[in-house]
C-alpha cells in the first residue's frame, strides 16, 4: 500500500473513510464537496456498505445518528449551508454520546455566500454549532495526505471518545490534487460498542440511546462528565505542526489552507534573514493551547492569519502568555480574497519586531 496516488482532497476523504471501515454514508449534494458522495456512491456499495443520497441535510445527519446508534461507522459530508442544517442532529448525537464523522468543506457565507475558500466556520465548528453547550472533535487538514490521514483519525477519535468528529477543510484543500500514500488503517485499540442498539437478547439489559435526561442531577452530571472528556482530549489528542519555532522572533499561526500559504511566506522570510516560525494547529478542538503557552514564554509576537475577520484568534489570544502580542491579518472569504505568499510576507515584514 505504499504506492503513490494522485487524487483530489475530497477523494482522499472518501478513500480514507472506506479504509476506516465506514459502513454507511448519507449525504446531500453541495459544492465544493460533492466529489465525496460521488466517489462513495459507487465505491461504498462495492465494499458492502450503504450509500443514500438523502432528501435533506437534516435527514442525512439523522441517518448517521441511527446507523451510529446501531453500532456501525457512519458519516456525512457537506458545506456551510448544509452544515448549518445538520447542527440539530449533531447536538442530538453529542447529547446521546454517539460517534460519527462529519466532513465540512467550508465555503463562504453567511447565507448562500459563495463557493470559494473560507475559514469563517471556525466558530461554528469549534464551539459546537447546535444548542445545549457541547464540543465536537475538529481536525483541520492542510494537504491531501492529511485529508486522508485525518479522516481515518476522525473515525478512531470519535469512537474512542464517543462524540462526533469533524474534518474541517475548505475548497482549496478539497479540490486540489496532490500525490498521497493511501496508508492502511492504523491499528488502534477501540472500545467495544456495548451501548449500541442491536435487538435486546434474552438475559441482556435493554440498550437505550437518548439525549433526554430528566432525572434529578442527571443533566448536570452529564455536562461535567463531558467537560472531563474534553479535558482528557486536550491532554491526549492535541496535534500541531511547528516550523522554525526554536529561534523565532515572530510566529505565524494559521490552519488549513492559510497555513499552506503561510508556510511559503515563512520560507521567504527566512531567506530574507527574518527569524520567523510557523505554528499550525491540526486539532482545532482540542486546541493545542499548551503549545502556544510554551512558545510564547520566549517568543512574544504572533501573527494570526485567517480567511475571516478573525475567529481562531480568540483561541490564540486565550492560549498565549499574558505578555505576548497577537497581530492579525485576515482576508474575509470571497472571490479573489485568497492571499498570496507575497502578501503574507509583506504582513510579516510589517509586524516583525
Amino acid at each position: 500500500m505504499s504506492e503513490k496516488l494522485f487524487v483530489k482532497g475530497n477523494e482522499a476523504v472518501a478513500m480514507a473513510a472506506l479504509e476506516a471501515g465506514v459502513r454507511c454514508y448519507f449525504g446531500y449534494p453541495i459544492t465544493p464537496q460533492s466529489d465525496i458522495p460521488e466517489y462513495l456512491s459507487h465505491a461504498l456499495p462495492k465494499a458492502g456498505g450503504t450509500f443514500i443520497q438523502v432528501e435533506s441535510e437534516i435527514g442525512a445527519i439523522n441517518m448517521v445518528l441511527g446507523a451510529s446508534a446501531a453500532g456501525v461507522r457512519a458519516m456525512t459530508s457537506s458545506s456551510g449551508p448544509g452544515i448549518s442544517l445538520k447542527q440539530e442532529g449533531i447536538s442530538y448525537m453529542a447529547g446521546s454520546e454517539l460517534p460519527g464523522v462529519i466532513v465540512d468543506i467550508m465555503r463562504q457565507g453567511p447565507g448562500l455566500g459563495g463557493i470559494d475558500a473560507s475559514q469563517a466556520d471556525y466558530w461554528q465548528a469549534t464551539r459546537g454549532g447546535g444548542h445545549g453547550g457541547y464540543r465536537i472533535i475538529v481536525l483541520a487538514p492542510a494537504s491531501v495526505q492529511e485529508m486522508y490521514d485525518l479522516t481515518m483519525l476522525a473515525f478512531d477519535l470519535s469512537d474512542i471518545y464517543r462524540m462526533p468528529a469533524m474534518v474541517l477543510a475548505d475548497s482549496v484543500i478539497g479540490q486540489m490534487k496532490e500525490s498521497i500514500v493511501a496508508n492502511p488503517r492504523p491499528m488502534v485499540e477501540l472500545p467495544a460498542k456495548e451501548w449500541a442498539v442491536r435487538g435486546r437478547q434474552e438475559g441482556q439489559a435493554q440498550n437505550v440511546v437518548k439525549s433526554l435526561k430528566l432525572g434529578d442531577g442527571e443533566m448536570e452530571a452529564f455536562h461535567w462528565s463531558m467537560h472531563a472528556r474534553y479535558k482528557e482530549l486536550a491532554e491526549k489528542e492535541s496535534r500541531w505542526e511547528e516550523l522554525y519555532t526554536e529561534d523565532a522572533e515572530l510566529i505565524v499561526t494559521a490552519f488549513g489552507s492559510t497555513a499552506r500559504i503561510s508556510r511559503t511566506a515563512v520560507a521567504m522570510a527566512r531567506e530574507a534573514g527574518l527569524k520567523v516560525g510557523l505554528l499550525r494547529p491540526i486539532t482545532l478542538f482540542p486546541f493545542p493551547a499548551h503549545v502556544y503557552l510554551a512558545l510564547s514564554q520566549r517568543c512574544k509576537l504572533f501573527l494570526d492569519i485567517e480567511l475571516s475577520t478573525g475567529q481562531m484568534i480568540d483561541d490564540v489570544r486565550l492560549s498565549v502568555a499574558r505578555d505576548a502580542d497577537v497581530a492579525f491579518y485576515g482576508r474575509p472569504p470571497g472571490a479573489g480574497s485568497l492571499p498570496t505568499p507575497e502578501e503574507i510576507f509583506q504582513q510579516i515584514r510589517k509586524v516583525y519586531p
Partner: protein
Amino acid sequence: MKQVFSRPLNLKDVQTHFCPGCQHGAIHRLVAEALHDLGIRDRTIGIASVGCSVFLYSYFDIDVVESPHGRAPAVATGAKRARPDRIVFTYQGDGDLAAIGTSEIIHAANRGEDITVIFVNNTTYGMTGGQMAPTTMPGQKTSTSPAGRDIKNDGAPFKMAELLSNLGGVAYSARVAVNSPKNVLQAKKMINTAFRYQVEGRGFSFIEALSICPTNWGMKPLQANQRLTEEMIPYFPLGVYKNTANL
C-alpha cells in the same frame, strides 16, 4: 387457576405517564403483542420520537433510539441500513410525523425503507399542552386555534394513511382505532400485518392509529372516545389504503 390474560413480555411492569383515558397504552400493547406474536422482540429496534411518545423505552423492554423531533424515519433508515436483519419501527405522534417530520416520513416511505411506522393521530400536540396539530379537525378549538381550526388560514387536516398510500415504496398503509373491542381486534390484525410485511422484506409499512387526548380536548375519557367515534372516524375513515399483497 388458568391464566388467560397477561402482559406481553416486552412491555415492562411499570406505570405509564399517560393521562387517564389516553389510548397510547392500548396502542403500545398492540405493538408489543405483534412483536411477541411474530417472535421478533429480540431483534427489534424501536425509534422513539418527541412528544408523549418519547418514553417508548420506559415501557417497552427492547433496544430503543431516541430521535430528534420528526426525524424518526431518518433515524430508523440509518439503523435499518446499518443492520438490515433487524426489525426497526418508529412510534410517532401527529405533530412529530405530519408537521415537523413531513420530509423524513415522505422520503422514507418513497424509498420503500423496510421499516414499520406507527403513527398516533389524536388531533393535537399532547405533550406541549394541546396546540393545533396538522391533523386538528376543521373547527376544532385548541390552545393555538382558539376560534377553531380555520381551513382558510391553516389548511385542511392531513390524511396521512391516504397520502402515503400513493407512494411507490409503501407496501402497506392502514388506519385503525382502538375505540371499541371490535376495532381493537381489527387494529391488532393490521399492526401484525404491518410488522409481518417488514419481516418478509416487502418494504415500508404504515399504521395510523386514531387516538384520544381527553386532557387536552377538555373531555372525560368516555366523552373523548365518543368524539373519536362520531367525529374523527367519519373524517379519517378506518381501513387499508394500500396492500401490495393485493396488487
